[in-house]
C-alpha cells in the first residue's frame, strides 16, 4: 500500500529567530499540499504568499473564537494590503505565555492544477490568560500556475520574526 502523506521539507528556526520561513522548489509530483506549523512570532498573524506573488490576488474569510465570543471578518474588513496574502491567524506572540507555541494547518488541494487555488487554514493560539484564540479560515489565490514556493512572514511589525524552535513542515499528498 502506498503511503502518500509524504514529508517534502521541514524547517526549524534556529537561535536568533528568523524573519521568514520559505519553502522553495516544491515538486509538482503530488496532488495536494499540507503545511503543519508550530510557531511563535511577534505578531498574531502570518502572511502567506505563493510563488512570490505580492499582487492583490488573495482573498480570505475568517471565523474566530476567543473564549468569550465568536466573530467573523475577511480581507475586505482590513482592506489593502490584506488582499496581497493569505492571512494565517492566530499566532502565539511574545506577549503570550512563555514557551507557548501556536499550531496551525493549511491544506491546499490540487496545487498544480491550472485553476485558482483554494485553501483551508486552521490555527490555535492557546494562552494562560483570560483570552486565547482559535481560527478557521478559507483562502483563495487567483493564480493559476502550479504552486512552487510558499513564503511565511509574520504580519506587520518593526522586525517581524519567528521565535527560535518554531517549526514548519510541508507534506505532499498523492491521490494515486
Amino acid at each position, binding site marked *: 500500500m502506498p503511503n502518500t502523506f509524504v514529508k517534502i521539507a521541514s524547517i526549524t528556526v534556529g537561535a536568533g529567530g528568523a524573519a521568514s520561513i520559505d519553502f522553495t522548489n516544491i515538486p509538482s509530483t503530488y496532488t495536494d499540499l499540507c503545511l503543519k506549523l508550530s510557531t511563535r512570532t511577534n505578531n498574531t498573524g502570518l502572511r502567506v504568499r505563493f510563488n512570490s506573488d505580492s499582487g492583490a490576488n488573495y482573498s480570505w474569510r475568517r471565523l*474566530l473564537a476567543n473564549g468569550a465570543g465568536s466573530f*467573523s471578518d475577511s480581507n475586505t474588513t482590513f482592506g489593502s494590503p490584506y488582499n496581497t496574502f493569505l492571512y494565517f491567524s492566530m499566532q502565539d506572540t511574545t506577549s503570550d505565555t512563555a514557551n507557548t507555541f501556536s499550531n496551525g494547518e493549511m491544506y491546499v488541494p490540487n496545487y498544480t492544477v491550472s485553476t485558482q487555488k483554494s485553501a483551508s487554514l486552521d490555527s490555535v493560539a492557546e494562552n494562560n490568560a483570560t483570552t486565547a484564540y482559535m481560527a478557521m479560515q478559507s483562502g483563495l489565490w487567483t493564480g493559476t500556475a502550479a504552486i512552487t514556493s510558499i513564503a511565511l512572514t509574520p504580519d506587520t511589525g518593526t522586525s517581524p520574526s519567528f521565535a527560535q524552535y518554531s517549526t514548519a513542515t510541508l507534506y505532499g499528498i498523492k491521490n494515486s
Partner: protein
Amino acid sequence: MPSTYTPIATTTLGSAASSVTFSSISGAYTDLILIISARGTTSASSTSVYFTTNITGSNYSSTWLVGNGSAAASSRYSNLGQGYLGYIAGGTTASDSRGNIIAHFMNYSNTTTNKTVISRGNVAEAETAAYVSLIRGTSALTSITVGEGGGNNFVAGSTFTLYGIKGA
C-alpha cells in the same frame, strides 16, 4: 509505521454532474478522509454539499459553525435523509474558482456504533465553516455519495478523492 492517506478512489469530473459516488469501500481502514475541490452551478457565491451513505432513512443530522466575513452563526438539521459537509464555490464565482471540503469519517467500518463525520468547508468568496454530522446506523459504511446541495451540478474539473487511514 501504518499507512496514512492511502488513496482508495479519485474522481475528476470530465463533465458536469450532480453527484459523485464512491462504492464498494473497503473496510480495511480505521477512518476515511474525503477531499473535495469543486465548484457548483447553483447561482450563488456558494452552494452546499450533501452526503448520503448505504445507511438510508431519515437518520442524518448536521450541526455547523460558520463565518461569512461579518458574523459568526450556528445552526443544525436533524432527521434528514442526508447530511451536510460544507460549502463549495457557487455559480456566481469566477469560472475557475474552487471551494474545498475536508471531511473525516471516523471509525467508519465498525458495526457497533453510529457514525460521525467532522468536516471543514471553505469558500473564500463567501464563508468558512466547520460541520459535524451523525449517521444513526451501525452498518459499516460501504458507499458514500456527495451531491451539489442546490440541486444543480458540480462543474467539470471538480475533484473528489477518498483516502483511508489506518490506526494500526
